[in-house]
């Protein structure tokens, strides 16, 4: 009963936040609502018995997306402080009926899918049956790295493609100093970083390690690590750079490269393609992916091709 009430509460807030993020009076408020919507989603995942998704949503969906939206918003208002009043909304006479119809369709589909006779989920059952022999405890990590590893390989490729595409459209002339806060540095920030940075690194490593057995994994860990990087960018410790940096670029690709090379290697000794040769390989790939994901997200945030250290204070 309490569970159901909690569900209702989450759902009501989901809906309210969704409406608000689209209809909020100012764009800034819209972003805020959207970020909170991500947090509410994360609660919903927890309620739906999907802790991995909850964590991913909190870290990636709410955290990273929120940060990206904020920084994009900031760049927008530098160009044109008043973002919306000059825009003419598109003609929308049919919007409500279409939205209602679409919602109804999804609802009917969903209800029917729930009511449908439970089918034996062959793939899922096979995953759970085969998990024991792998040494992994978290079936989702098993799916992502072992059974459907190719999906994950392509997924980080998609992330890379998004970064490259974003870089391709980012104008290189005005690579900003403006990312960092204009305020003079305060000692407090330094103190914060001194504690938070090691702590986040620790947490992300923990998440990574935990991913093998329980909740966690490279994506969550990478997102947490990225948050640390974002903090460093925001406080001026890391700066956007146009210069080619082998270190950054290697870090960016170490995940993909490790995955491909370790995936191809089994062919040499007659094993199937992408058959990872043991747990060490999983952890290696996950660590490498964590670094790549974190770097990718930080670069997306900084809107830059590369990063460099800045001396500060």
């Amino acid at each position, binding site marked *: 009963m309490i569970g159901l009430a909690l569900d209702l509460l989450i759902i009501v807030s989901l809906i309210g936040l969704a409406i608000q993020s689209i209809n909020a009076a100012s764009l800034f408020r819209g972003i805020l609502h959207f970020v909170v919507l991500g947090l509410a989603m994360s609660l919903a995942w927890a309620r739906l018995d999907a802790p991995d998704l909850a964590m991913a949503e909190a870290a990636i969906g709410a955290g990273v997306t929120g940060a990206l939206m904020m920084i994009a918003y900031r760049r927008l208002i530098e160009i044109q402080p008043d973002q919306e009043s000059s825009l003419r909304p598109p003609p929308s006479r049919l919007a409500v009926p279409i939205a209602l119809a679409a919602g109804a369709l999804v609802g009917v589909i969903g209800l029917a899918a729930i009511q449908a006779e439970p089918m034996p989920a062959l793939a899922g059952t096979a995953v759970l049956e*085969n998990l024991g022999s792998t040494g992994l405890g978290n079936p989702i990590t098993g799916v992502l790295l*072992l059974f459907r590893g190719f999906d994950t390989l392509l997924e980080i490729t*998609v992330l890379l493609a998004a970064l490259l*595409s974003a870089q*391709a*459209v980012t104008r290189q002339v005005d690579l900003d100093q403006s990312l960092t806060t204009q305020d003079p540095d305060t000692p407090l920030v330094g103190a914060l970083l001194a504690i938070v940075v090691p702590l986040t690194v620790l947490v992300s490593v923990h998440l990574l390690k935990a991913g093998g057995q329980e909740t966690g994994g490279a994506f969550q860990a990478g997102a947490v690590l990225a948050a640390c990087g974002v903090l460093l960018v925001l406080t001026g410790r890391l700066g956007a750079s146009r210069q080619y940096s082998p270190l950054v670029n290697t870090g960016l*690709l170490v995940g993909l490269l490790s995955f491909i090379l370790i995936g191809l290697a089994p062919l040499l000794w007659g094993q199937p393609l992408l058959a990872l040769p043991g747990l060490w390989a999983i952890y290696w790939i996950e660590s490498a992916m964590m670094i790549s994901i974190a770097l990718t997200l930080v670069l997306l945030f900084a809107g830059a091709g590369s990063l460099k250290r800045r001396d500060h204070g």
Partner: protein
Amino acid sequence: MTTEALALIVFLPLLAAAGAVVLPTAWLGLSIRVGLMPLPLLLLIPTLEVLENGAYRIALAGHSAPLGIAWQLDPLSLLMLWLNVGMTLLISLHANCSFRPGQPHAHRFWPLWLLLFAGMNALLLSADLFNIYVTLELVTLTAIGLIALEGKPPALRAAMRYLLLALLASLLYLLGVGLIYGQTGVLDLYLLAERLAPGWLSVTAIALMIVGLLIKAAIFPLHAWLPAAHGNAPGPVSAILSAMVVKVSIYLIWRLWFWGVPEWDLDRAALLLGVLGGMAIVYGSLAALVQQRLKLIIAYSTVAQLGYLLLLFPLASTLAFQAASYHLLSHGMAKAAMFLAAANILRSLGTDRLRHLAGIDQRLPLDVFALALGGVSIMGLPPSGGFLAKWLFLEAAWSARAWSWLILIALGGLLAAAYLFRVLAVVCLHPRRRGNHRHLKRTPDTASLAAMLLAVGAIIAGFTSAPILDLVEAGLPPGLPR
């Protein structure tokens, strides 16, 4: 050997893309070569295998179908792979002129280009519905990045519209995949046939996937994003997008339809898809007739020509399959040639507005010739691949006694002739002032050569169809009428 070769066909371009990102600029040329040049040779190995033993299946990571992801190479996907590899290579020849390493956008272009290539190869090999979703995303994101590469406002706007629609399309597709998993407990395309019973939920699932793919394939009336995107992208990008990228979506619909749910009674849906195709043909052609820019004409022509690929559904026979595949092939080459030629013209003149093209054939004869040859194939005039495709389509329509399709196909050729000869007529017009084209920039020879090779390919396709048609026939799902 075959597994290794297929692995390299996907991973070599990926590694090359990584190399293009991580290595210093001086190494860019090498990365490109490594990622592209060995591919035709590599592809020979699986080709021999498939020709000898039929479809070839790999369980990735050694986990077979319900558990893991599989690659499946059958004659049809083999044909598509050859097309993708061949056209990407030829277009790369052109791209190597406009994005020669060291030029402004080159270091942005090539990694995305190689990723797109790898994504397409992975997509064509994949037998797994969700894996296909991921590859589709990879293809879409890289394609949009490439469209927006040069940062011109129309291209940016087109890219944005494309992105929003593509995301919407992906969601529909994903929803469909999720529902199918709920219905069958498997994600493998080739396991659906025996597991997915026709009920309204599974029909809805398939319909959602098809609608998503139709958006990505820019089928009328979901085509709105295509002309602007293909018309404003850099030349090589327009070429590969029109020649291959939009078509794989339709190829996927074929797969779903004829391999995924072959037993279903889909006559009405097939008719609907056919009607959409017919409307695309008519609308796209009419829209092409009123455009004022060469690249937009060619882009609208793509909208029209994609319609033919949908006629396969109502006709549904071996002949129709051969016709559609052959159309895919010859239109791909012809369209790529035309876009590359248009890109050369645009580059030389600084504009591709029709009224500035008068007399251009005297200055850029090779490009105009490529444009015209490509046009011949698009119109379906003999001798060209387009003609054979049209012939096969007509024959298929006749065998099915489908008179309306027959008339439509004949009419489609005439409409294509109308908008293409409109271009050629302007080209043949004498320039009003002498020295109209004084400020002409020279096109690099390889750029024209690439266009010409593709155009000649489209014509030669009119003479050597038998091996390809046999290949298509060998790859057909069982039970298709002649």
